[in-house]
């Protein structure tokens, strides 16, 4: 088999799995899940094979065929296979594969397990499509497919109204962003005449002013897409609600894939953004990071804490992109995929062990009951907090360094502050949920999860630990700068020493956060913060009232416009225009029918009149 066919196979295997499950094995749970798991694992192995054979930076990075051609629009269906997409390919299939395997254990009790795996495979297919697209149109199609399949997965337990609402919220919020994205794509096509990334990049390199005065606008419109998918302020509201889905879905969507799509897309099309657009992007990212970190401090639901933590980390990545640093952004994206998936799956394991309990104040003392979960969770926490030498430390440090490098001290301060907050809320979670004494009966009777769930935890834990110095950053660096020299393992290990100030600030933030969490929560039975912070704590807990503000302004305005449109449609369009025409036609029909009396004499008379009419018309003048 030719090597070029491999990526196609990798892309379409999950779709095939979806089709087979939906069409044939919907009744059989085990068979369905095995089909789905083997599709994604095979994808992972084939990706490794491909990379092994072709290397990361092969000469030939595109394979495409013409899909449709309308006028000036020539849309290809093609795959882009450079280091960026190959790395994402590994993340999606690798982390996704771990989550698939984990789901086999987690969803074992659910009666619609087959449907779950069908959706999961569809989601994987869509995500792979985004990653491998070589043009905007194709990417947009898969972009929407991700939206659809995330809708299906978040609303998987559709019998719960909250799940249905969350699914709708996620979908609609994403669509808002996608609207801007589509406008941006159209604008790019209109101005540059192509949708292919390679062609666009060539155009932008030879003539950086090709977009002219619309450059900022086009960049921001495209960023709208990322804003929706990567849940950046002000479209961040859907992500926490999306925790209504099953926990593996949260892990898949909110750690490794869907939210990463926005950042990935920004990195893929970075050449389109001018300085102004990047500035806006950076500040939105920084603001989101800070906002989400503050909210996370006062959440009590284990999954929600992780969700806001995801938001906050995404803010980091977007900020890094905005600071013209795709390498740190993608680096952080990769390490984040490892440890956030690990944390979500760990949380899932806890929830599973405690029979669907999600409130951290009802846990405690899980160290002995769930040793594997405990140890892997602490590794994830350390990685997320940025404790050296775990992976998060390296990626976060590269973002700090990038901020300093750009001399943007405001964002650097924000980033360091967020790092402190991150450590604080993660250790709050850790101290409350895992240490101390069990607070409830359920926590006392917790049990370790089965092997099929703990093994993926272990695998992810390994990467959460070592992800920082195994050459990932160098890989991205080579992609974006093309002259990056390869570093040895030891060099990578000591890489942060190149920016000692950033290193010091980062470590300082971690230590402050850790100490604060230790003092406040080591022995706490209830949360001490609300008493000390007062209204601020309430605002944090209530997510700074964004949902309420949206409800009062946008949704109400939207409802008003909708009802006006409805009235217009019902009375003016439907009633006056269509109704009159329809009624008029109908009446004419009925009236004309009266001529058909069935009486022969009348007919003969009408016939004669008709003759007279014709004679008059033809000869009368």
């Amino acid at each position, binding site marked *: 088999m030719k090597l070029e066919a491999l990526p196609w196979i990798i892309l379409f295997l999950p779709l095939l799995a979806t089709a087979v499950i939906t069409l044939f094995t919907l009744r059989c749970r085990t068979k369905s899940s095995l089909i789905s798991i083997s599709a994604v694992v095979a994808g992972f192995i084939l990706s490794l094979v491909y990379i092994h054979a072709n290397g990361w930076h092969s000469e030939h990075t595109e394979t495409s065929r013409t899909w449709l051609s309308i006028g000036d629009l020539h849309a290809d269906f093609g795959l882009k296979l450079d280091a960026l997409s190959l790395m994402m390919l590994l993340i999606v299939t690798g982390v996704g594969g771990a989550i698939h395997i984990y789901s086999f254990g987690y969803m074992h009790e659910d009666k619609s397990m087959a449907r779950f795996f069908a959706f999961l495979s569809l989601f994987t297919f869509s995500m792979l499509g985004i990653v491998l697209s070589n043009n905007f149109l194709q990417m947009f199609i898969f972009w929407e497919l991700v939206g659809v399949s995330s809708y299906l997965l978040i609303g998987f337990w559709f019998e719960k109204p909250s799940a249905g609402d969350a699914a709708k919220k996620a979908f609609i919020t994403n669509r808002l962003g996608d609207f801007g994205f589509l406008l941006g794509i159209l604008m790019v096509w209109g101005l540059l005449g192509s949708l292919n990334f390679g062609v666009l990049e060539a155009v932008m390199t030879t003539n950086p002013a090709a977009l002219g005065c619309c450059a900022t606008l086009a960049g921001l419109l495209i960023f709208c897409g990322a804003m929706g998918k990567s849940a950046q302020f002000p479209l961040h509201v859907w992500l926490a609600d999306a925790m209504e889905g099953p926990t593996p879905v949260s892990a898949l969507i909110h750690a490794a894939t869907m939210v990463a799509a926005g950042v990935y897309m920004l990195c893929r099309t970075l050449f389109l953004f001018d300085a102004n657009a990047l500035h806006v992007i950076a500040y939105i990212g920084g603001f989101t990071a800070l906002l989400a970190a503050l909210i996370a401090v006062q959440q009590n639901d284990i999954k929600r804490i992780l969700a806001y933590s995801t938001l906050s980390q995404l803010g980091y990545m977007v900020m890094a992109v905005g600071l013209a640093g795709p390498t740190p952004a993608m680096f952080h994206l990769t390490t984040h995929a490892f440890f956030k998936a690990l944390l979500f799956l760990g949380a899932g394991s806890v929830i599973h062990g405690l029979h669907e309990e999600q409130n951290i104040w009802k846990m405690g003392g899980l160290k002995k009951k769930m040793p594997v979960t405990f140890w892997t969770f602490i590794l994830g926490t350390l990685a997320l907090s940025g404790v050296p030498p775990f992976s998060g430390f390296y990626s976060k440090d590269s973002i700090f360094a990038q901020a300093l490098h750009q001399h943007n001290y405001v964002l650097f301060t924000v980033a360091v502050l967020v790092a402190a907050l991150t450590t604080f809320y993660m250790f709050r979670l850790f101290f409350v949920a895992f240490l101390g004494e069990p607070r409830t009966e359920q926590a006392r009777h917790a049990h370790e999860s089965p092997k099929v769930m703990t093994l993926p935890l272990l695998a992810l834990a390994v990467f959460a630990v070592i992800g920082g110095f195994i050459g990932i950053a160098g890989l991205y660096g080579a992609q974006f700068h093309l002259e990056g020299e390869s570093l040895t393992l030891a060099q990578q290990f000591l890489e942060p020493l190149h920016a000692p100030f950033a290193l010091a600030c980062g470590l300082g933030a971690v230590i402050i956060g850790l100490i604060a969490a230790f003092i406040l929560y080591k022995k706490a039975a209830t949360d001490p913060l609300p008493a000390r912070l007062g209204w601020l704590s309430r605002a944090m807990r209530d997510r700074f009232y964004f949902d309420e503000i949206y409800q009062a302004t946008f949704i109400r305005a939207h409802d008003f416009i909708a009802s006006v449109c409805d009235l217009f449609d019902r009375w003016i369009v439907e009633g006056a225009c269509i109704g009159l025409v329809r009624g008029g*036609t*109908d009446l*004419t*029909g*009925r009236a*004309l*029918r009266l*001529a*058909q009396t*069935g009486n*022969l004499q009348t*007919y*003969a008379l*009408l*016939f*004669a*009149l*008709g*003759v007279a*009419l*014709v*004679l008059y*018309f*033809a*000869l009368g003048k």
Partner: protein
Amino acid sequence: MTLEVCVMALGVVLMLADFWLPADRKKFAGYAAVAALAGLLFLSFGGCGCCSLSGTAFNGMFVEDGLAVFFKRFFLIAAILVLFMAVEFSDRIAGGVSEYYSLIVFALSGMLFAASANDFTMLFVSIELITITFYILTSFQRGRLVSLEAGVKYLILGALSSSFLVFGIALVWGTTGKLNFNELAAVAAQFESNKIFLIGVLFILVGLGFKIAAFPFQIWAPDVYQGAPTPTTAFLAVGSKAAGFVLLLRVLFTAVPTVTAHWANLLIVISGITILYGNLCALPQRNLKRLLGYSSIAHAGYLLLGVAALSTSGQSALLYYLAGYLFTVCAAFTVICLVTRHLDNDDLSALAGLNRRSPLLAATMTLAMVSLAGIPPLAGFFGKFLLLKSVLEQGAANPGYYCLAFTALAGVVISFYYYFGVIRAIYWSKAAADVSPISLSGPIKVALWICIAGMFWLGLFPSKALNLATEAASVFAK
């Protein structure tokens, strides 16, 4: 000529066969007739002399040209499909079945003569042969009051129209002294301002307008279509209408082309009103056959688009549309004939649950309705497209053509409502009174498949049929 003689002989044989066939075999005489006609049709393609492309007979009263050949094949196919239907219908005919077949064949011979008519005498004789046969065919179900009523109405109004026709012929002959179309064409220009001559031509048009059910002579159509036995209705809608059209074409474009050129507005108005009248009246209809009666008026209007265009492309579009109309209407009436076998009425409700009773019938009816409505990829779409195109081509010269095209489009839109009402009745009726499966005999399945194939063939591969139509219409270009 050979073809007509053969068909005549076939009619006589069928009529007499009645006396020597055992009672239970009589209905199968129809299949023999089908076989004979199919043989003749085959020979007409083989070029064995019975359908030569040139020549005249009876001192020029009878011509063989492309147009005649086109229509003769058309009528043969129509008669074959109607005969298939008639065999299925035979158990509902109290009188002699063979007579019913033979009358269909006699009507066919009248149509064949009409296709070749090149003289007012021949025109009148062929029309009367068709019409008188149809009087009997219409009232053939002597036990049914509606059938008799339809027969009487058709007889009286038909006689009225024939009187106008023959009076018109007399006036034309009286003023010009010519009956032959070609001879008349040579002198017609001199009489363009002669009112008597023009009245004569108009009276002839009245008689032909009655045959094709064009406004304002459409009044008989719904009643007669509803009352007549279903195969008769089908033959009336296809054969009789087409005969009217071939004669109309000959009179307008061979006999008095110079006069016709002045009457563009008359034709436009007649065509437009016919379309609107047929479609509007069909809207509130619940009776299937009556609905198709109104629909047939509307289609006469569409066909008149091709006449009103006064161009060769219009005439060829008309011929093409007629071909599609043949298969579509035969399909619809065959389904009605089979569905209403055990019912007294032909209301839309009879179709309820048809998709479960017989998927083939349901599919055929749906396709027929879709084709009548003019939706691709079936025959009706391409035909309407050609007709509208031919009309729009003339728009530069006379803005009335744009109005006509718009009217036709409005008619098409209106027609969607009732055509899809039929489809809705098939698939989405609330309660089906009768859900017993309908068993289909082999031959009728063949007929249905011929209709379906015809609809698809004309819709998907129009070039062959369009070439034939253009060739036939080229008669008028000379």
